[in-house]
Structure formats: C-alpha cells, structure tokens
C-alpha cells in the first residue's frame, strides 16, 4: 500500500448552533485545516465529505456544504451518506490509486435541529422495526443490559467510564461536557432507559471536522511528523439486532484484525462510543486497555453527528503529530447498536 498520512486536523463543536448554518460552520474550519496543512487549496487532489440529509430535514445537505470548499475551477469530489471517517476511507482509496497526492476530508452535521435519538430510528428495517419507533437510546439500553448481564460488569463500571471521560474532557476545548463527577452522584441520577442514565449518553452536538491527507514525500515535506495510516478497514454486521451477539462487536474485531492493530503496541485509542457501555465493548474488540481509551473525553464529551468518527482519527493523529503518542488506533461506528465499524491504525515515523 502507498504511504498516506494525516497532515492536518481541525474541528469544532457546539451544543446548539443558533446563528450559523452548516456552510457557515464549515467554512472557517476548512480554511483553518487547509492553512495548517501547508498544501495550497488549489493543489488539493481530491475532496470527500460525509453528511446526513435527515439532520437537515432536506435532501442534498452535501450540495451546499461543498460551497464551503471553494470548488472552482471544478474539483474531483465525492460524498458518502456516512460519518466523515468513511469519507476518509474513500479519500484514502483515491490516494492508493496514485491518481492524486492529497485529499481534503470533512464531516458535518447540525443535530440540534431535530431529535437525533428519534431520527436514527429511520435507519431501522422500514417494514418491521422502524414503524415501532424505538429510539437509538432504547436500542443502546438493550445492548448495555445484555452486555452487563454477560460480562458480570455493573452500572458502577459504566459510571467509572463516564467519570474517566469527563475528567479527560477537561483538557479538550471542544468538549460540550466535562468535569469531576463522583461515582455515587452518577449512580444517584435517574435512568433515561435502564441501565443508561443521562451521563451514559452522548450530548447532542453540532459539529464539523476536517482532515487533510497527503501521500509519501508530500506528507514529509509539509509536516515534521505526519501521522501515517498503517491500517484502515471497515466491516458491517447483519442489521437485525436479533441476528447479532450484542454483547460484543465482531465487526470491530474483524476490522482491527485487517488493520493490524495487534502488530505493535498501542499508546492511545479513540473510539466512537456514543454510550458508556460501548467504551467497554469496543475496548475488548480492539484489544486495548480502557484506561488509554478516549483521552479527549470521546463522544460522551462531544459527539458531532457525522463528524465524531472522523474526530477520533483526528484526535489520534494530533497526538502522533505533536509527539505525545507514537502508535494509536481510532474507531468510528454507524448504524444501530454498533452495526458498522471502521478501524484506523496511525503511527509516527
């Protein structure tokens, strides 16, 4: 495979963007990421984005999003109706063909415009499940209960995950939530859907994230310490919850195997866990100790829908580029109860 690296990463989040639309949210972050990349906007070879029409409530959310890029003269460009992490996968493929040497990747979404827990119900089997309107929190709670029963872990362990995330998030400027909650206080709060409490569930977040990729010598020439993509793979599982073992994430484990997670030590892991129990399920699937997972606080601190998976890659890449980590793994997810998962291994040189 051709050597490809993350050379620049920027993102922004806000609990509820009151003034700006998606294009206005994107434009400054795209400019910031391109300026920091050392690659001129006009030299970028390929552009790919991830967004979700149902957040906007209209068709073609990506069409106006492209106006934040400056696509003139016309550019090589594509879009996935998936988290920006999968846009990064498509861009990585374009770089692998050798046709281009750099790529701009972005993901964006303004989840506060609707009820994201209910919107995600529209992902379910349209004939047999979606008409029942189970929210994504209801499905996560089923998974959390199954996991606790099977693993012997308790709600206290979930509170421990939340407390670690909130402490870590104190150093993350983009965190919507952070602090030093006590385990007892967390366990004293009411259930939203048993066994999940409010702090176990991601905060609704409007966000955008941008990554610039570059290949080989270009990456070395623009960045002192690029974050090289050593492995990148994604896998999907059957859709029906009844057809999967909810207590584990087989597709994450399979993607991790193909991405080569276990072929070296892991200093840092960022996982797209939108619920506390998912941190534990994903740590097990990736084979990493939960204590090194989500030093940014993770999606429990800020979860820009359609950008949070790309942010995980960026948060690992940032730590490699600044020298605080040498080898890390990032994870992104899509679909009900971790149906589809992407794993990216990044390393310094």
């Amino acid at each position, binding site marked *: 495979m051709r050597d490809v690296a993350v050379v620049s990463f920027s993102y922004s989040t806000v609990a509820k963007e009151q003034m700006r639309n998606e294009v206005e949210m994107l434009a400054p972050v795209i400019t910031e990421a391109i300026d920091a990349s050392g690659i001129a906007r006009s030299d970028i070879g390929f552009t790919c984005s991830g967004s979700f029409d149902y957040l906007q409530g209209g068709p073609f959310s990506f*069409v106006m999003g492209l106006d934040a890029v400056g696509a003139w003269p016309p550019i090589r460009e594509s879009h996935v109706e998936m988290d920006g992490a999968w846009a990064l996968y498509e861009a990585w493929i*374009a770089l692998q063909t050798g046709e281009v040497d750099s790529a701009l990747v972005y993901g964006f979404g303004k989840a506060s415009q609707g009820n994201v827990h209910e919107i995600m119900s529209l992902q379910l089997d349209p004939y047999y499940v979606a008409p029942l309107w189970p929210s994504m929190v209801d499905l996560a709670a089923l998974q959390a209960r199954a996991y606790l029963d099977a693993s012997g872990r308790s709600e206290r362990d979930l509170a421990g995950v939340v407390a670690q995330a909130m402490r870590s998030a104190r150093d993350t400027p983009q965190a919507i939530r952070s602090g030093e909650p006590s385990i007892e206080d967390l366990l004293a709060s009411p259930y939203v859907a048993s066994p999940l409490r409010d702090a176990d569930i991601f905060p609704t977040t409007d966000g955008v994230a941008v990554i610039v990729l570059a290949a080989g010598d270009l990456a070395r020439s623009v960045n002192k310490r690029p974050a090289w993509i050593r492995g990148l793979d994604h896998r999907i599982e059957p859709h029906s919850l009844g057809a999967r073992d909810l207590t584990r994430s087989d597709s994450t484990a399979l993607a991790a195997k193909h991405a080569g997670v276990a072929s070296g030590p892991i200093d840092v892991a960022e996982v797209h866990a939108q619920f506390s129990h998912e941190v534990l399920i994903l740590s097990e699937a990736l084979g990493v100790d939960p204590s090194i997972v989500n030093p940014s606080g993770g999606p429990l601190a800020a979860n820009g829908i359609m950008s949070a998976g790309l942010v995980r890659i960026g948060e690992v890449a940032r730590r490699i580029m600044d020298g605080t980590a040498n080898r890390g793994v990032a994870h992104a997810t899509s679909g009900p109860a971790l149906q589809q998962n992407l794993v990216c291994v990044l390393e310094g040189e």
Partner: protein
Amino acid sequence: MSKNAVAVVGVGQTHHRSSRKDVSMAGLVREAAVEALEDAGMTWSDIDAVVVGKAPDMFEGVAMPELYLADALGAAGKPMLRVHTAGSVGGSTAIVAAKLVQAGVHERVLTVAYEKQSESNATWGLSVPMPFSPPLVAGAGGYFAPMIRAYMTRSGAPRESGHLVAVKDRLNAVRNPRAHLHMPEITLKMVEESWLLWDPLRYLDTCPSSDGAMAMVLGSEKVAAAAPNPVAWVHGMAMRSEPTMFARRDQINPQAGKDCAADVYRQAGISDPRRDLDCAEVYVPFSWYEPMWLENLGFCAEGDGWKLTAEGATAFDGDIPWNPSGGVLSSNPIGASGMIRFGEVAQQVRGAAGGHQVELKTGKALGHAYGGGSQFFAMWVVGAKKPE
C-alpha cells in the same frame, strides 16, 4: 504508481416499473445483484466488498438504507460503503467501486444502485422548504426549464428539438424489455400535444418515476481472466464537481462537465468522441438535455447539439447512437439511473445488450451521469479490449 486494470465481469438489472409492489426494497436490490452475480459466475461469498448508491434518503423515507440492506446484499462481515452525490450517484458509485479494485484493495466488488420511487414522491421530496433558502417548489423540472429556455435562446434551437429526443428515446426503449415505458405508438404530434408542465417541457419530454435497481460485479485482471462471459474493461473514469452559489457558473454548459469529459477522454485515448465511440448512454432526464450534453461532452461545436439530433445522428441507426436503451426518459429509478447508463454501455461493448445492441466498430462507449443543478458529473469509458 501504476493502477490495476478493472473490468465489469457481471451486470444485472431489474425490470423498471412505476411501482414494484411485488418486492420490498431489499427484494428489489437483490434481484439486480443476483443477476449480476450469475452473469459473473459468482456467489455471495466470492464478493470482497459492497458499494451501494442511491439519491436522497427522503425518496423512500429510510435513513442510510444500506444498513438495513446489508443482509439482502450479503455484506455481513464485509466492508460496505454508501455513496450519495445527487443524480450522478449511480455513476459515482460505480467509480468508487472500481477504484477499490484499481487501488488493489479488493479483487471482486459488488456495486448496486437503486431507487424505489413508489415508496414516496420525489418531486416533493426534492422540494422541502428550507429556512433562509429560496423555495424551489416545482421539483427538478421546474429547476431545469429555465436552463433549457436559456439554451434555446443561445443556440436558436427550434421548439421541436426536445420533442424529437422524446420520440427517439421512447422508440429505442421498445427494443429494451427492462425499460419502464414502452410506447411504440409515440409520435412527434403526441409529444407536442401532451400537457405543458414547465415551459418548454411537456409531459412526454420528461422522465418517468420508476422503481428499479442496477448492479455490477467489478473485478481485477485476474478475475476478468476467469470470467465465464465477455467482460467490459474500464478505459477511463472521472468525477467533477463545481459550487452551487457561484456567479461564474454556466449552468447551460457547465465547466465541470467539460472538465470531466476531457479527463475521461484523455484516459481512454479519445480525441473525437463522435468518431471514437460506438455509442453513449447519457443522463437525459428532460429531452432537451440531449442537445445540451452533446455540446458539453464535445460531440459537436457549441450551438450545434440540436442539429445532430435533428439529422438523426444520435438515433439507433445514426452514426453515434445516444441512449439505445431508451435512456432516463424511458426508465428513471433516480439513484440507479446513472449506474444504468454505466452498466448499459458495459453490456454494449460486451455484445450483451440484446435487442438494443449497437454495431461495434471501435468497441468503446461512454457512460455519463449528472446531478444536483448540473454541478456534479461522473463518467466512464468502457471498451471490449483491455486498455494498453
């Protein structure tokens, strides 16, 4: 870096209808996919990855439907991607799938595009009023009619130019059993007397609203060598996009379309598309887009597109047949329409197009798709022979 060769080793498509009440969405995509696998001599387990494309999720009311379709498409345990680039999506989905092979990441990729328009109403799905945006309450036809009027003014094309395409493509569709519309009785007079919807577009100048799916199996050189049927080689593929709100855009003859065509012709070694191609399947959802795209794609000088149509150059027996399958004017499952163009030209160069097979001379053909308000373009050129 040298790219790996890519071939279309299997093609499958549904019968397109206004309402496929006999199948669910999963059943619809599976019908096309099974046919493509059989054509390729493969089963589900042979496939390394699945790439799905469709137009906006609101056309059926299912968000990210590929998640639900993972089982029906045999994707469990595999990578699955979902592409969405507006009306060009069927073409760009095929290109994303082909790049997985070209990059050397996979050997055999199944790609499927579909729309089940009967689940909803596309015109109103396209016309959701957005805050702080000018309302577009007339669907795609209302958007494109002013562009067509501007083209008429620029080129001096007579009013019947569009109607001629409407008749030609419907007569081509009679040769194609998969086409949605079969109108052997159609005449110029019928088109001229059909309802005026958006001046100058009349009812019969517009595409139908269809349920349908298209699938292809793409393979590496090694896979192509083992294929049971003739394959179509990818000689070039390209995508281009331009901004929406930009004063220098020419929506009548977009720069992105010209650049995309120039790129794909360069890759495929085509200097004169009218001479060097045996046929083209081009995204013509409203009849007037044939003359407009003839110019944009370099088949003639600017202003002359309507003359080619009037002379019969693009007819089934013309020197450069456009849309021998009947085109988007005869079948329009929106998200699939681009991939139908790409797959139909693969069938042509494989000699597998059946009743609408054109005569092969150069053995090369162009598949084209566009989307949005003519900002998004995807094209490929396929050939009977392996590229040098």
